């Protein structure tokens, strides 16, 4: 076994035996299990409301007297606003609206409510809209047309190939799930592994073991062994979570479990997810190791690392925008920028076909960053692991890297 493998084995096994690691590995599914249990207890006792809501209306135009039952909303006619106000006062109705006499020309509806609101709730708006359009059309078109006006679109999208055949890889929400899960796992993996790396480096620096290690192995062997060992431990953690996820989802809802079973993952898609997962992890592991080396204590290292992990996590904040406009130039740039590349690309892959050149450039940039990161981290470790005390400034680090 070569020395990198020995460091790898030691880091992997030591991390697996850490109390914090064991607790974290099992606490996430456990919390999920408790949350599901709590949800089921609560949902068992609290049924969704099926109460009918009364909304009043005053018809100054005339002719709006049908279709007063709209799902859980019942529309109650009043002869005048004063009558409607009385109904409001006696709580017979929740709110009311007035159809103006020139409604046909203006479409004007005045809505009155006791509640402070920006706009009526969507369900109320939909009920009023359907009530108005149905009454306007009644007697003029068949009932089926009225139904179609209410719900004019029942959309089924089928992706086809250039020859017109049905594509084996279909779009849709299902495809967003897998990249979503992968990007979330990557972010979790980065956060935890980076924390272990910084902790490990900090410990070896604080307990002065680093010199003994460097008298036996090279800086590069130490870094690669550590990064891969901790990465493998992080992967074990992720695998435990992934295995527990379907069981938990099955427990949570059979419909969600069924939905997941219908998902199809194209192999090329899975390969890309794995490639980005590994490259992304390696890049952040290098950054974390360098931070661990320059930080006087593990705690200070964690704070500094947050800046970079936030960079990785930030695309998740814009995930809905990425999914809606996956080919925007902004996302293309972030697909190539190594810090954001893994998460942005995974999210884009779910909603569009990312151009091959973008993937190629992005992987190349990531590979170069990982290699450059390794070389730079080796220098930083060599320079700073033997310096105890104050954290160096950025200018000093750059100067030392140039000299060193």
């Amino acid at each position, binding site marked *: 076994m070569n*020395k990198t493998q020995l460091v790898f084995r030691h880091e992997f096994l030591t991390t697996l035996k850490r109390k914090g690691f064991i607790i974290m590995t099992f606490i996430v599914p456990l919390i999920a299990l408790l949350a599901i249990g709590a949800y089921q207890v609560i949902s068992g006792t609290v049924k969704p409301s099926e109460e009918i809501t009364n909304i009043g209306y005053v018809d100054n135009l005339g002719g709006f007297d049908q279709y007063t039952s709209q799902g859980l909303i019942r529309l109650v006619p009043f002869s005048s606003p004063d009558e409607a106000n009385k109904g409001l006062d006696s709580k017979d109705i929740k709110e009311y609206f007035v159809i103006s006499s020139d409604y046909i020309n203006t479409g004007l509806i005045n809505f009155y409510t006791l509640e402070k609101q920006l706009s009526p709730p969507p369900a109320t708006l939909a009920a009023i809209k359907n009530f108005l359009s149905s009454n306007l059309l009644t007697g003029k078109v068949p009932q089926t047309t009225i139904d179609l006006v209410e719900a004019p679109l029942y959309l089924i999208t089928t992706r086809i190939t250039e020859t017109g055949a049905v594509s084996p890889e279909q779009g849709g929400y299902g495809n967003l799930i897998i990249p979503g899960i992968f990007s979330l796992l990557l972010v979790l993996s980065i956060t935890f592994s980076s924390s272990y790396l910084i902790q490990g480096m900090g410990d070896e620096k604080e*307990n002065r073991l680093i*010199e003994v290690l460097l008298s036996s192995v090279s800086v590069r062997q130490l870094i690669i062994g550590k990064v891969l060992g901790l990465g493998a431990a992080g992967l074990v953690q992720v695998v435990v979570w992934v295995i527990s996820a379907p069981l938990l989802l099955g427990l949570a809802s059979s419909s969600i479990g069924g939905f997941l079973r219908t998902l199809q993952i194209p192999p090329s898609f899975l390969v890309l997810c794995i490639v980005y997962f590994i490259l992304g992890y390696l890049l952040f592991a290098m950054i974390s190791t360098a931070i661990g080396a320059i930080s006087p204590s593990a705690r200070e290292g964690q704070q500094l690392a947050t800046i970079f992990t936030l960079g990785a996590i930030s695309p998740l904040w814009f995930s809905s925008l990425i999914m809606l406009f996956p080919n925007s130039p902004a996302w293309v740039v972030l697909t190539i920028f190594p810090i954001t590349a893994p998460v942005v690309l995974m999210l884009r892959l779910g909603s569009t076909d990312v151009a091959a050149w973008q993937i190629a450039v992005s992987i190349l940039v990531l590979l170069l960053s990982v290699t450059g990161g390794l070389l730079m981290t080796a220098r930083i470790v060599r320079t700073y692991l033997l310096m105890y005390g104050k954290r160096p400034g950025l200018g000093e680090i750059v100067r030392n890297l140039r000299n060193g």
Partner: protein
Amino acid sequence: MNAVEVNHVVKSYADKVAVDDLSFSVDQGEIFGLIGPNGAGKTTTIRMMMDIIKPDLGEIAILGKKLDETTKNSLGYLPEERGLYKNLRVMDSIVYLASLKGMNPSITVEKASRLLAQMDMLTSQRKKIEELSKGMGQIIQFIVTIIHDPQLIILDEPFSGLDPVNTELIKKILIDLKNQGKAIILSLHQMNQVEELSDRILMVNKGKAVLYGNLAEIKSRYRNNAVLLGYEGELGEVPGVAEKREHKGYVELVLDNKTTPHQLLERLVSRGIAINRFEIATPPLNEIFLKVAGDDHE
């Protein structure tokens, strides 16, 4: 082949020159004392030898070649700043660190058990490092340093924090290792221990070599033509003695420039003085250092 060959090595940090044009060699089968006050450049020199930091200028050869990964397996290094994995058990720590030197785990366990027994620490083998005292931790590190049978052993302040019993035990092991042909570099600032163990020394001050060579030769070079004399009866005035310093149980006689210790001995015998100790006085290393460092300062 020399165990260590250091040629014109220079290492500077931002605000000072830590090692300034240092050259020396260490032979196999000798204990070599690397001495000097704190901050003299000893640890920097050792770190460069171990390839932990790179020299700005100069060449270093370890066991006949530039240090590489295979040569590292023939080195044992006990750094000044020391520590072990606090949560790891004693035997696990030794096995892991020895494995990085190419040792087979089962052989390591067997050898470690023997060394632990020799140090009277066999019962601690399953304890975690954090449960050990500082001195015990240091013994474990010493075991880690020598367990893989290295050809070159570098010990930076090996006795600091050790009690007298363990200090003696480690000294004995070091002499045994030297007799087996190992090269041992002892970096110490306590010069009396260097005198006791070293065959040759390099004394550094402010990054520069101020004394280098065989310890006995150096001491004889710096001796001040004095004799330590233990006797019975009345000494009286002795011709050729410029100064007489009384010590408990003996007297130090500083001779004038014309008299040799041999002539003095003849005169004492001819006067019928009962002599129970006659020793040519050599100054302690500490005194030599103060003299050399003082000259250097001037």
